[in-house]
C-alpha cells in the first residue's frame, strides 16, 4: 500500500534529523555526550509540549499566538503555589485548569465574535502576561519579589531519572496521547475535517464551533503543563517566562509538517519539528561559532521547510495533472466509440 503523504512528510523531517545529528556527531566531540543528548531532549521537550497544544489548533484550521502569555501566567501561579508547599500533582492540576480556562477564553472569543485568530490570540497573549504580573509575588512597595522555590514535593518535577528529565517523559507521553487522539479517535477526525473544510464538515453534522473552542482549550492546557515543568526546573518564575514561545512553537510545527491552513500533519510531526529546531540550535553552538550564525541558520531552515512543503504540494498537484493527462489519451478512443453510437 503506497505510504501516504503524511508519513512521507514525517520521514523527510526524520531523515533531516538523522543527517544533521550524524554531521554534528562527526564534527563536534561533545555532541554525543549523554549530558548533551539529555539537554537537547529537555529543551526540545519544553518547546515540544507547547507544540502538541498548538498542533491541535493548527490542524483545526486556527492559529494560537497566546501560548507565551499563558505560559507566563500559569508558570507564575505554579511558582506561587509551590512557595506554599503544595505537592506537585495539586499544582499541576491547578495550572492545567487555569491554562485550559485561558484557552477556552481564546476559543470562545474567536468563535463567538467571528474574530480573526491571529490578532485575537496575539492580543490575549499580552492580556495573560498582564495577569501574570497581577499574581506575581510583590514587595510591599510594589516591585516584583524574586523567589527561589525550595518545596521538595514540587522540585522533583525538574529532576531527571535514568538520564531522562521528567519533562521529556511527559512530552513523549503527551505526544503519543495527542497522536492517538488526532488519528484514532472521532474527535481527531472531526478536528481534521473542521480544519480542512469547515463548511462541509458542518453540513455532515460536525459542531465546528465546539471543535474550535476545544482545540484552543487543549492548547491552553498543554502550555500550562510546559510552564509547570519549566518552573520546577528553574526553581523560580519570572515575568519574561515564555516570551516569544508563541512564534517558536508555530514555526516548529510548520517545520514538522503541521501546516497553517488546517487539516495537515499531527502531533508526531510537531514532535519531530521541535526536535529538529532544538537540534539545529544546539548543534550550531558546538562550533564556538559566533552565535549570530545560529539565528541565520534557524531562519534559513524554516524557509527551506516551508518551501519544500509548498514544492511538495506543487509536485503532488503536477502528479495529479499527469494522472488526468493519462485519461485524456484514453478519451480519443472513447470519443470514437461514442460517435459510433450517436443519438436517435
Amino acid at each position, binding site marked *: 500500500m503506497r505510504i501516504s503523504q503524511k508519513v512521507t512528510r514525517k520521514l523527510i523531517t526524520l531523515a533531516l534529523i538523522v543527517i544533521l545529528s550524524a554531521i554534528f556527531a562527526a564534527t563536534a566531540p561533545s555532541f554525543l555526550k549523554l549530558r548533551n543528548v539529555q539537554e537537547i531532549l529537555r529543551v526540545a521537550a519544553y518547546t515540544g509540549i507547547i507544540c502538541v497544544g498548538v498542533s491541535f489548533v493548527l490542524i483545526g484550521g486556527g492559529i494560537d499566538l497566546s501560548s507565551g502569555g499563558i505560559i507566563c501566567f500559569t508558570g507564575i501561579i505554579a511558582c506561587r503555589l509551590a512557595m506554599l508547599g503544595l505537592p506537585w500533582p495539586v499544582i499541576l492540576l491547578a495550572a492545567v485548569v487555569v491554562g485550559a480556562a485561558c484557552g477556552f477564553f481564546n476559543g470562545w472569543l474567536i468563535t463567538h465574535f467571528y474574530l480573526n485568530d491571529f490578532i485575537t490570540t496575539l492580543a490575549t497573549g499580552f492580556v495573560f502576561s498582564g495577569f501574570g504580573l497581577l499574581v506575581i509575588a510583590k514587595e510591599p512597595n510594589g516591585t516584583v519579589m524574586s523567589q527561589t522555590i525550595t518545596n521538595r514535593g514540587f522540585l522533583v518535577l525538574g529532576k531527571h531519572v535514568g538520564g531522562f528529565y521528567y519533562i521529556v517523559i511527559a512530552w513523549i507521553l503527551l505526544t503519543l496521547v495527542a497522536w492517538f487522539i488526532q488519528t484514532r479517535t472521532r474527535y481527531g477526525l472531526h478536528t481534521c475535517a473542521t480544519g*480542512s473544510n469547515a463548511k462541509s464538515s458542518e453540513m455532515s453534522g460536525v459542531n465546528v464551533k465546539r471543535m474550535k473552542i476545544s482545540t484552543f482549550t487543549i492548547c491552553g492546557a498543554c502550555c500550562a503543563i510546559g510552564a509547570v515543568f519549566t518552573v520546577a526546573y528553574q526553581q523560580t518564575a519570572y515575568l519574561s517566562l515564555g516570551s516569544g514561545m508563541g512564534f517558536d512553537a508555530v514555526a516548529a510545527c510548520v517545520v514538522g509538517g503541521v501546516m497553517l491552513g488546517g487539516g495537515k500533519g499531527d502531533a508526531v510531526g510537531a514532535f519531530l519539528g521541535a526536535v529538529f529546531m532544538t537540534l539545529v540550535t544546539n548543534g550550531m553552538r558546538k562550533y564556538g561559532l559566533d552565535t549570530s550564525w545560529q539565528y541565520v541558520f534557524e531562519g534559513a531552515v524554516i524557509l527551506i521547510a516551508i518551501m519544500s512543503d509548498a514544492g511538495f504540494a506543487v509536485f503532488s498537484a503536477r502528479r495529479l495533472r499527469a494522472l488526468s493527462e493519462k485519461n485524456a489519451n484514453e478519451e480519443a478512443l472513447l470519443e470514437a466509440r461514442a460517435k459510433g453510437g450517436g*443519438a436517435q
Partner: protein
Amino acid sequence: MSEELILRTENVCKSFNGIQVLKNVNLEIRKGEIHALMGENGAGKSTIIKIITGVYTKDDGEIYIDGQHVVINNRHDAAEAGISVIYQELSLVPELTVTENIFLGHELMKRGLPDRKEMRRQVQELIDRYGFLLHPDEVVASMGMAQRQMTEILKALSTEAKLLIMDEPTTSLSASETEQLFVTMEGLRERGTSILYISHRLEEIYRITDRLTIMRNGEVVGVVDSKTVQADTVTAMMIGHELEKTARRTPNVNYQHCIEVKDLSLGNLLHDINFKAYGGEILGIGGLVGSGRTELVSCIYGAMKNYKGTITLDGKPVSRSVAKNIRAGFGMVPEDRRTEGFFPQLSILRNIAISSYDRLSSLGFVKAGAENGHAEKAIADYDVRPAMKKLPLQNLSGGNQQKVILARWLSRDVDVLILDEPTVGVDVGVKAELYVYMRRLADKGAIIIMVSSDLAELTEVSDRVLVLHGGTFFQEFRDHQATQQAVLLASSGVAAKEGVVL
C-alpha cells in the same frame, strides 16, 4: 423498473417575497429509475430540489416517499427519508480518506473509538458492489475529479439513500470520466436505487435516463420517455412561449473592423477555433456550461495567456496583457460578478472609475473632479439605483451591481466589449436595459462578443450565433436564423437545419 413510486410530490407551491416560484409541481420518480429533470435557468428546477432535500420549506403541497407522507423541514429529515444530494461543487473534506469522508458525522464506534476496520470493510463492500475504481484509504486531496464524484456518490449510498439527486455532475468531467459515471449509474439502477438527474445536455439524457420531466416558469409542462422523445419536442416544451419580439436590429456591420481568431487551441479544452467578430454586430457564443466559452473569451481579453494560435484586431496582434488591451479599448464583464466582478466594500464611484484611471488622472494623481463627473454621468446614463455614488457596492441589488460593472466599461466608450453571462440573476426589467445599452454600443461600431446560456437572449439579442461543442465551433447561425431550439440542439452536438455546420 417496478411501477410503485419512490418519490411523489403533489401540488407543491413556493413563493419568495411575492413572486410565485413553484406552481403545483407534481413530480413522480419510479423505483430503480433514472429520471431526468430539465428546464431553463429560472424554471424552478433547483427550488423543487431544495424543497425535497430540506434546504427550503414548501409553502403547501405534499411529498410522498415510498408511498408514505413525509414532512421535510431540514437536511436530517431528508437524509432519514433516504434522499441525498450531490451538488455541483462537491462537499468532500480533502484531507480525509475515502472511508473517513463517507462516515463523517456518523462514524461506527466500537468501545468508544471509531471502528476503522468495520468501516473500511463496509466501504470496500460498497466499492465492490458498484464497481468503483476507489481505494478506501486514499486521501481525497490526491484524487482526480471523477474519483471524487464517485466518492460523493458512495457517501450518498452509504446512508442507504433510496433516491440520489445529482445536479449537473458531468460539467467538469472529461468524456472518459463521464462514461465511468454512466456505468456506475447503470449499476445503481440495477440495484434499485433511483436517481434524479439534472442536466442541460440532451445527449446525456438520451444515453442514460429512462424518463424526463420538463419544467418551465415553475410548472411541470410534461413528462416524456427519454429514449423515444425527439429533440425538437423537448426544446419546444422547454421554451414554450415565444419571447415578445424585441425589434430585431439590422446591424450595419463594418467588415474592416474585426477581431480574427486563427486556429486557437487551449490544453485539451479547445482546439482549432477559427472565427471573426465584426464591428457593429453582437456575436453570441452558445454552448453548454463547461464547453470552454469562458476560457475562449478570456484568451481574447488577455486574462488567459497560455493559448496557442493567433488573435488579431484589425490585423494587429492582440496582446496577452489585460492592461494593454484595456488601453486599446477592450472591456470584459466577467461570468461570476461576486468573485471576479466587483469590489464589495468600495463605493459605486470607485467601482466604475477603476477601469478608466488612464483618462481620469495626470502624472499619477487622480483628478477628483473628473472622477466624480465620470461616475455621476455613468450612474445617470445607466440608471444605477440608489444613485448614491459613495455607497459601498455590496449594498446594491444584483441587477444594479451588474449595471455598475457594465457602466465601468461603457463609460469609457470601449471598442471591444466581451460579456460573459451578463444577465444571470438579473430581474427582467434590468435585463432589457442591458440589451439596449449593448445595442447602442454596437451601433457605434464596437465589436461585442456575448457568451450566454440563456437561449432567448442568445437568439434575440445577438445578430450572429456560434455554438461551441466538443472543444470547437460546431455550428454558426447567421442573420437571426438562430432559434432557441436550433441553438439548444447545436450545443448538444445535433446539427440543426438552420445553421451552417462548421
